Every structure is written in structure tokens, then in C-alpha cells.
């Protein structure tokens, strides 16, 4: 644990130093106009260009707040008594309906997250849309099946891995001599699905992370409070 603390101090120290010595950062704070934003970031959705380009620092810590909230819910509810009798809805029609809706909502949410830079949407919205299907499925499944299919430990590991990947992507430009949070991948043709450098990658990662977080919250609440 001591080593991790040391590594984090060194990493964020480099972050601040590179931020201070780089003059380019100042021109990257605000675009001239809407077309200027597209030229800077390669994403034709200017809102994505803002929150994953100009204001990426803000978004990073919003993700951290989300993570802390999810961990708080899991930790605090873990000390409370679980429900002895979990009564899911077991009608056949409802089970088939929710299973069908699960696929639709998962794929729609992931589409919204992946295509966040070329159309309306983004990772935050897509994650929540994807999670609604899973929450519907939870209403119809017995608790043992939920814990088997949506294993809480694996989901927590994935969530932390994705968080680490996002921070690594943002800190990586330090090591190749650019200022932190620079969009270091080629920008591509604006309007294509492969464009905008790191914006679609970070958007997809945020989408998966928000999906896992929302599913974890719903699962914990259902485990301790039941479905109705």
C-alpha cells in the first residue's frame, strides 16, 4: 500500500509539472466557436468535445465521485441485515418479456456510449440506459441466480480496472512528452465512427463503468430490501 501511495504521488506530481510547463494547455481551454471545437477534437458532437476534451479534468473527478458513491452504497448496505425471503415475480410472460428487453436496452445503451462523439448521447447516458434492462431482469430472478450471473466481486474488479484504464489513458501523454489529457491519438475524419482520438474510447469505458455501477447499486438494494 505504501508503494501505491508513492506511485500516485509521483504520477500526479508529473501531471502537475507537465501542466505547468506546457504553454499549449492555455490555448486548449476554450474553443473559438463550434467549428473550432470540431477542429480541435475531431468529434462532431460538440458537447462530447467539451466534456471529454476541454473539460476532461472535471469529468474525471465526476467519475471518481460516482465510484465513491457506488462503493459507499455497497459498503454501508453490507453491514445491514439481508432479506430472508426474496420474492421475485415468477410469471412466465414477465420473465420472457424482461429477458427480451434486457438485450434491447444493453445494446441500445452501448450504441449510445460508443457513438457519443458523432450523435447525441455519451457514456453517462448510455450506461444508465444499458442498466435499466438489468434492473428489470432482477425483478424476476431468484437472489441466488442474480449473485451467480451478476457476480458482485467480478463486477467490482472490472469497475476498478476500467477506472484505472481511464486514468492511464489520460496520464499516458506525460510519458511521450505531451501535456496531460492531450488527445494523443490521430483525430481522423470528423463524422466517422473512428474519429476524435481518445474521445470514443473514454466514452465507451465510461459507459461500461456507469453500467456496472448502476447494476451494482440496484443489485445491492434488491438484496437487502427486496423487490417491493
Amino acid at each position, binding site marked *: 500500500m505504501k508503494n501505491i501511495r508513492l506511485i500516485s504521488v509521483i504520477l500526479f506530481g508529473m501531471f502537475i509539472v507537465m501542466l505547468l510547463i506546457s504553454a499549449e494547455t492555455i490555448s486548449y481551454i476554450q474553443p473559438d466557436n463550434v467549428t473550432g471545437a470540431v477542429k480541435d477534437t475531431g468529434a462532431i458532437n460538440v*458537447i462530447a468535445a467539451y*466534456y471529454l476534451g476541454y473539460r476532461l479534468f472535471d469529468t474525471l473527478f465526476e467519475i471518481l465521485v*460516482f465510484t465513491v458513491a457506488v462503493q459507499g452504497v455497497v459498503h454501508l448496505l453490507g453491514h445491514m441485515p439481508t432479506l430472508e425471503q426474496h420474492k421475485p415475480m415468477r410469471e412466465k410472460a414477465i420473465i420472457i418479456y424482461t429477458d427480451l428487453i434486457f438485450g434491447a436496452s444493453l445494446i441500445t445503451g452501448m450504441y449510445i456510449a460508443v457513438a457519443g462523439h458523432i*450523435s447525441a448521447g455519451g457514456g453517462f447516458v448510455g450506461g*444508465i440506459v444499458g442498466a435499466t434492462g438489468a434492473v428489470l431482469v432482477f425483478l424476476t430472478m431468484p437472489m441466488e441466480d442474480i449473485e451467480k450471473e451478476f457476480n458482485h466481486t467480478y463486477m467490482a474488479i472490472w469497475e476498478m480496472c476500467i477506472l484505472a484504464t481511464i486514468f492511464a489513458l489520460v496520464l499516458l501523454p506525460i510519458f511521450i512528452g505531451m501535456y496531460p489529457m492531450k488527445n494523443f491519438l490521430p483525430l481522423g475524419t470528423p463524422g466517422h465512427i473512428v474519429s476524435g482520438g481518445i474521445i470514443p474510447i473514454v466514452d465507451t469505458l465510461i459507459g461500461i463503468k456507469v453500467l456496472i*455501477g448502476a447494476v451494482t*447499486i440496484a443489485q445491492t438494494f434488491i438484496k437487502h430490501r427486496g423487490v417491493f
Partner: protein
Amino acid sequence: MIYIAIAVVIFAIGGIGIIWKDNILLKLLSLGIMNAGVVVLFVSIAGLKHRIPAILNTNGPYADPLPQAVIITSIVIGFATMSLALVFTMLISLKKGTLSSKKLQEDIDREH
């Protein structure tokens, strides 16, 4: 302009709920309504001059993208923090056996 007025009304409804309601759970719901009012305010400020969303495959003049980019993250964060607050409410109800803020205040006064 009318949307800003609607946002202020939603915010005020939430604020009145926080002040008047005795139950902590209802206070939390009022806080959620206030959150919704703030979101509506930001989106309506973005659309004050022009209404077309700033996605460049449509023809502009575009709405201001900055308030929308600021508020898009806060919706999900609001959901997460609200569930954390609900867990705290559950803890209070488990330990004290009541959710009435008046009774909780009396409890605290008696202890000191």
C-alpha cells in the same frame, strides 16, 4: 424565458418540500426534485438564443454546448449520490426506529 420560470418553480417546490416535510425520506425526494430543477435551468439557459443541438451534421445557429456539457455528468452523479443518501436514511431508521426529523432532533437534545 418560460423554461427558466419552470425551472425556478420546480426548484422552489423542492425547496419548500425540504423545509416543510418532517420525514427525512420526503426531504430526500424534495432534494431530488431540486436537482431536476437545476438540470432544467441549465438546459434552458443553453437554449436561450438558439435551439438546434450542437452536433455538426445539422445546420446551425447552434445552442450553447457548455451548459449541456456541464450538466450531462451531474444527472448520473445525482442518481448515485441519491442512492447513497437513501442508504444513510436506512441506517438512521434501523438505529433510531424513526424517520421524523423532529423526533431525531429531540433524541439528540436529550443526549446532550
